[in-house]
């Protein structure tokens, strides 16, 4: 299992790949829709990739709240075993 620092850089790269950007172009607070052009289907692809990589389940009700990398870090921080 990754430690905290690792999972943040891994998730950033995962989001960058799906958004077709470089990790350097994505800040933790960039808004997925407005700043990065990530639509709802790309957001679901991000969620599916994170679930697969970290073997967690992200509840469907949480998905609309995922609007930035920081939102994902916060969510994964809660879901991953301490």
């Amino acid at each position, binding site marked *: 299992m990754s430690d905290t620092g690792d999972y943040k850089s891994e998730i950033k790269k995962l989001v960058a790949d799906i958004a077709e950007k470089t990790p350097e172009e994505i800040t933790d607070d960039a808004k997925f829709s407005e700043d990065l052009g990530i*639509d*709802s*289907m790309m957001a*679901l*692809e991000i*969620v*599916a990739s994170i*679930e*697969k990589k970290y073997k967690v389940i992200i509840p*469907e009700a949480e*998905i609309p709240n995922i609007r930035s990398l920081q939102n994902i870090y916060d969510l994964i921080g809660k879901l991953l075993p301490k």
Partner: protein
Amino acid sequence: MEGIWDINKIQEILPQRYPFLFIDRVISIDEKEGKVTCLKNFTANDYFFTGHFPGKPVVPGVIMIEAMAQASIIGYAAIKPEVASKHPTYYLGKVEAKFKRPVSVGDQLIIEVKKEKIVNNAGVVTAVAKVNGEMAVEAKIMFGVILDTQMIADGKSR
């Protein structure tokens, strides 16, 4: 081979019809694991062989992707039967595919779809299509599901 969904049941879920229905039978459904297995037989009577290619029939890759997308809808319906029963509109979002071998007249395509994530308005699945146990296509498919058809007319599909 006993199918668990025959063509009549398939047509209750899939909106596609001839000449664009590419699932003949559903062989297995595992709602818990989010896995379905479907079958498609290609015959000399299939219309696209007339032009693809004259004298050398090969199933077009886009047709196999469509068959896998239709199997994905069946997978969605197994997990979200309450939404599927309302006959929503399904649309493809993104496909990443690798084609491993040609598929031709007489081949029976076995399509296995497994969910990665299914929510009410979209899905991400992995799909493989095999002939005689040999890999023909593997794909990751993302699709959207819209209940309100007016949203399509307004161009607000996402």
